[in-house]
């Protein structure tokens, strides 16, 4: 099955990004496809390379980058939501790209399921 993923919450503050990551990992292990992960609202904060968690904690941003690199998962950050929150190309972690909301609608149309993670 082809999944689209929407993440509406920032890292660490909220479990949404963790749950989405674990969902994607499990889906990939089962042979499903993750067509795109779209980051919206405070979810855009999952994409900044300036994130530096304590050493004994998980690195949420790097984890997404690694999944993007290893499985070719398209990690898209909403431009309007990003600019509002100080996320720009200069501080984007590897594997993420900034684009428009049309990318969310597109994956909603093309994927078999769009799964929303947020409040």
């Amino acid at each position, binding site marked *: 099955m082809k999944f689209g993923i*929407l993440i*509406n919450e920032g890292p660490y503050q909220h479990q949404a990004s963790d749950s989405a990551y674990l969902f994607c990992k499990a889906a990939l292990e089962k042979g499903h496809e993750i067509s795109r992960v779209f980051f*919206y*609202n405070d979810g855009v904060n999952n994409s900044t390379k300036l994130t530096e968690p304590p050493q004994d904690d998980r690195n949420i941003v790097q984890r997404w980058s690694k999944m993007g690199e290893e499985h070719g998962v398209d990690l898209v950050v909403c431009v*309007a*939501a990003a600019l509002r929150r100080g996320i720009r190309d200069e501080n984007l972690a590897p594997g993420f790209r900034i684009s*428009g*909301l*049309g990318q*969310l*609608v*597109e994956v*909603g*149309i093309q994927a078999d399921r*769009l799964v*929303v993670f*947020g*409040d």
Partner: protein
Amino acid sequence: MSEEGGIKKFMFVNRKAPYGTVYALESLEVVLITAAFDQDVSLAFLDDGVYQLKKGQQTKGIETKNFSPTFRALDGYDIEKLYVEREAMEERGLTEADLLVDVIVLSRVEMGELMEQQDVVLSC
């Protein structure tokens, strides 16, 4: 699923008050883009989300943009299916007369049935 010609049923579920958090405003932006993709769009208002449609909003005091006029412009984007949950409205002492646009009022059960018919449900 209704995928004839790439058209899907998108439902936007609004559960939060219009101000206090950015969810309502940013959800409305997705609604407009989805309509631009010629999709079958409907909006549902439950819980505190019904306050998004309350008439007479004045946001000057909190220095926040009053985006409620956008709801009145939705029919210009061919978005005419606005559903409000009766229980949510009544629990808050509101009636249809308090709302700034025409809506279809559904019971909680009917709302659930409508959600079941959607292809994509975006909630916030």
